[in-house]
């Protein structure tokens, strides 16, 4: 047993650092990625069972013609909640859970980059799910479909709280998803094991990285869409209301700019799981690794050029939609590359036909069918024929069940021994696979035919004698078989968890680093962090020269909860950082947010404001004290790894990277907002609408001067900190710069409030008013957050250590402030100058 420098065995020392003894801490304060990963997976699986039960109700209703099991209202609610649950509360969180658990292990590190953010994201996901399901308790269930098309879901056609539950839940959940995505991106880019350069990254990591980037760029569009819908419904704005100059197609654009990439958000990590399973169980590295890795990136990029293919039948002209048809064909190529690579790998491998591998095979079959029908609907004339028919239902279930659920099950079977320390029962696993595979195909293949026979989707019943009866009956029978398969799988997992054969560290003799840990892994994952020399370290790195062991950092890094960060491309070590301790703050912050959301639903706005203030206060506590910097370790890791920089501030800090990706997603939000402005303006006969005068320019000019000056003073503050890397910053100058920025920011907000106050039109006057106030108001809200951050930073200069390396907050806040300034310049040119044709 290796001895720690602290006079006790390394494992004991690390356990004491990485695990709290109290059970209550494990439950409510944990930030351990493994505990949170399991929670994500279990919670998402419960939602899967609920969503599956709802599907069973739909299939029961449709089993025979003119059935009265469900009425039309109930059916609308059930199919809305089925889709919402499966997409938002099962698929994305389940993949997030798998990634949360596996990522640090596969990367060869000890936790995610932002452990507390990880805990916060989980709690928000859980509370959001509970929130939307309380709609059943108050009989106000969403009923506008998981796609929530306007005007059906607008204030005129959707009374009651149902769609308010939906919009608020989706907004609420978006916070969790964004937080998880930022965490994944920063972790993968900055916390890979030394030597795990980009060309050596496991394909699962590529999939998760692509997924996270896609979320950051796609999700703001959905956030904006639902926010605008909530405002239309609650405050009488006119974003989607044609009578007020709005444009209902704006919803479809915003929704599908997120909605189509969402398919790939789910698919990309799933492809990564398949690559992992195929590699381990065919006992051969996936052939054409570079092409498969880049194909994953290409799919993520091309996904953004497909959204209009959901809108072929909305009346858009032929040429514009042809561009998207072209992109829809093109995306088949990288998908095909991956399929051929797996098939070739399997063909030349020594296959172990485990349940995990069987689910991977099932994926390949079903995904190819879903892909082919996808290319069919990419053809505009064909799409016109089958749009809104059961053909489309069959297509997307082949893509989403085949492309996501099968890989998830493959992953669960593959990693079950690692997570629980026990093996599943192969007979049960194979039984579950065949029942699920056959049940799935019996359920959904006939729906292709139903669609071609003209059965529309989203109908609660159908007349006898249309030729649909038999196919619907078969489809319902298939559901029963599929359900039996799920029951067998759940039984297998529950039984094996208690009584399964002990797994050992590496039962599959797999290639990646998670199998170098005990099963289940210790709280600290690795006693000595590994160093990587190849793409398959468990196969190629454990050479006789290394005694059959992985290369590793000899120093156990046990002065605190320490991890190594590495460079983005080459994974060269560049710092030792300390990650935060367990904390109750993420839970309380999520609860405060829940209070705010519930109060918004029932329109008790003072309570909502109180919830947001509480959230802000908790975030201030959260960020108040960063973990102490790791002690100077230059050349101290037993002369093996040279770490030239051990600061927690500056470009090496994870916080800086987190802020950069947060700004990326914020920039996309503003970009979507500005694009919405142009779309509504493009469909208007006059602009501004309704004879509203063009905005005056004197006040905006003053506002611009204020924001430019405040940005300059923040730059000055930044210089005080960054110019003093090896000494304490001049606090007087720093405080002065921050005070100036604060004052200018407050002046900006006051003047803008004055501009709003004296305005002759309001957000509910017409679509121009709605957009004007939405754009400037959103920016003002960001300014408000910026002002609070500057105030908070200023306060910290009196209370928190001034040692070099402790001040990552100033450059981060400055970065945010500069971003808000740049956004203002865009708004000035579009909303104030652009309206005059300048």
């Amino acid at each position, binding site marked *: 047993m290796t001895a720690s420098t602290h006079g006790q065995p390394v494992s004991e020392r690390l356990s004491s650092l990485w695990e709290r003894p109290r059970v209550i801490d494990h439950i409510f304060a944990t930030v351990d990625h493994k505990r949170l990963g399991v929670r994500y997976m279990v919670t998402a699986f419960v939602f899967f069972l609920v969503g599956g039960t709802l599907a069973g109700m739909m299939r029961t209703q449709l089993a025979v013609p003119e059935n009265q099991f469900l009425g039309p209202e109930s059916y609308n609610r059930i199919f809305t909640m089925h889709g919402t649950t499966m997409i938002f509360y099962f698929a994305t969180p389940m993949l997030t859970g798998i990634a949360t658990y596996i990522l640090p292990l596969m990367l060869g590190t000890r936790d995610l980059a932002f452990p507390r953010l990880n805990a916060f994201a989980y709690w928000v996901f859980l509370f959001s799910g509970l929130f939307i399901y309380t709609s059943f308790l108050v009989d106000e269930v969403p009923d506008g479909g998981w796609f929530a098309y306007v005007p059906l879901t607008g204030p005129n056609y959707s009374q009651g709280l149902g769609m308010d539950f939906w919009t608020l839940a989706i907004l609420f959940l978006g916070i969790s998803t964004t937080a998880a995505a930022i965490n994944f991106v920063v972790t993968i880019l900055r916390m890979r094991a030394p030597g795990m350069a980009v*060309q050596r990254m496991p394909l699962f990591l590529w999939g998760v990285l692509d997924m996270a980037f896609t979320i950051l760029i796609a999700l703001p569009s959905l956030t904006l869409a639902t926010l605008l819908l909530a405002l239309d419904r609650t405050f009488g704005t006119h974003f989607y209301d044609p009578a007020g100059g709005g444009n209902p197609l704006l919803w479809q654009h915003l929704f599908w700019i997120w909605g189509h990439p969402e398919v790939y958000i789910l698919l990309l990590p799933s492809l990564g799981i398949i690559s992992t399973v195929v590699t381990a169980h065919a006992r051969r590295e996936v052939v054409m690794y*570079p092409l498969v890795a*880049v194909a994953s990136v290409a799919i993520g990029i091309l996904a953004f050029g497909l959204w209009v293919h959901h809108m072929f039948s909305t009346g858009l002209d032929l040429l514009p939609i042809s561009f998207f048809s072209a992109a829809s064909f093109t995306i088949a190529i990288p998908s095909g590359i991956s399929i051929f690579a797996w098939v070739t790998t399997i063909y030349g491998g020594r296959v172990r036909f485990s349940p995990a591998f069987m689910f991977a095979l099932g994926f390949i079959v079903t995904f190819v069918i879903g892909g082919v029908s996808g290319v069919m609907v990419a053809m505009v004339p064909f799409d016109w024929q089958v749009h809104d028919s059961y053909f489309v239902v069959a297509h997307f279930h082949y893509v989403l069940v085949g492309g996501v659920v099968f890989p998830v099950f493959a992953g669960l079977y593959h990693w079950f021994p690692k997570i629980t320390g026990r093996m599943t029962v192969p007979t049960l696993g194979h039984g579950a696979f065949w029942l699920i595979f056959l049940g799935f195909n019996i359920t959904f293949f006939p729906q292709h035919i139903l669609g071609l026979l003209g059965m529309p989707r989203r109908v609660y019943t159908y007349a006898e004698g249309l030729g649909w009866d038999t196919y619907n009956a078969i489809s319902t029978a298939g559901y029963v078989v599929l359900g039996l398969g799920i029951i067998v799988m759940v039984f297998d997992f529950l039984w094996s968890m208690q009584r399964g054969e002990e797994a050992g560290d590496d039962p599959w003799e797999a290639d990646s680093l998670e199998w170098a840990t005990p099963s289940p892994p210790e709280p600290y994952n690795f006693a000595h962090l590994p160093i990587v020399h190849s793409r398959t370290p468990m196969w190629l790195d454990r050479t006789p020269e290394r005694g059959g062991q992985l290369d590793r950092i000899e120093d156990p890094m046990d002065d605190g909860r320490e991890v190594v960060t590495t460079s983005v491309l080459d994974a060269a070590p560049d710092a030792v950082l300390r990650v935060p301790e367990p904390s109750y703050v993420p839970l309380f912050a999520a609860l405060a947010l829940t209070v705010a959301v519930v109060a918004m639903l029932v329109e008790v706005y003072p309570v909502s404001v109180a919830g947001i203030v509480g959230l802000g206060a908790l975030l201030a506590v959260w960020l108040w004290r960063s973990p102490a910097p790791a002690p100077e370790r230059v050349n101290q890791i037993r002369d093996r790894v040279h770490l030239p920089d051990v600061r927690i501030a500056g470009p090496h800090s994870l916080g800086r990277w987190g802020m950069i990706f947060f700004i990326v997603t914020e920039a996309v939000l503003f970009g979507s907002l500005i694009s919405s402005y142009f779309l509504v303006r493009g469909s208007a006969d006059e602009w501004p609408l309704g004879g509203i005068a063009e905005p005056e320019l004197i006040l905006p000019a003053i506002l611009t001067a204020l924001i430019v000056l405040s940005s300059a003073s923040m730059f000055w503050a930044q210089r005080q900190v960054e110019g003093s890397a090896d000494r304490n910053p001049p606090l007087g100058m720093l405080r002065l710069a921050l005070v100036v920025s604060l004052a200018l920011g407050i002046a900006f907000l006051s003047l803008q409030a004055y501009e709003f106050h004296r305005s002759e039109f309001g957000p509910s006057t017409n679509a121009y008013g709605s957009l004007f106030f939405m754009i400037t108001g959103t920016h003002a809200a960001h300014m408000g957050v910026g002002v609070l951050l500057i105030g908070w930073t200023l306060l910290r200069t009196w209370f928190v250590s001034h040692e070099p390396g402790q001040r990552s907050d100033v450059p981060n806040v400055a970065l945010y402030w500069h971003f808000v300034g740049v956004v203002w310049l865009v708004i000035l040119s579009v909303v104030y100058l652009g309206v005059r044709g300048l």
Partner: protein
Amino acid sequence: MSQARNPYEIHDYPSRRPTGVGPWTLAFALFGGTIAWTVHLIAGYSVANYMCGDAVAVWILHGLTVVALTVVALAFLTALRVVRHATRLPKGERTPEEDRDQFLASGGLLLAGLGFMAITFGEVAVVVAGCTP
């Protein structure tokens, strides 16, 4: 303290032989084709949606295609050059950075190829469907 090994040897980076490929060149090789396709898609969609009927619109669309395909070709050639440069030595003699450059530039070849296809498909639509209101 053992001095037997260069501390950099453990993680292989950075090696002492520079690759001769700058970061911007590598970035263009990797993403040039994608950026060209993105701009072509958004600009083409906007022109087709809002300007068709104007006689000049179709020529703008053709012009967009020419510019986009030129950028794609440049990205492809740059990627090809990087791959050749990175693989000029036999596999066992290459530095990790050269492996990295080869990997990223190979990705650029694929992305440029996909960009070429998508842009060309779009241009075919312009030729076949025309740009009439």
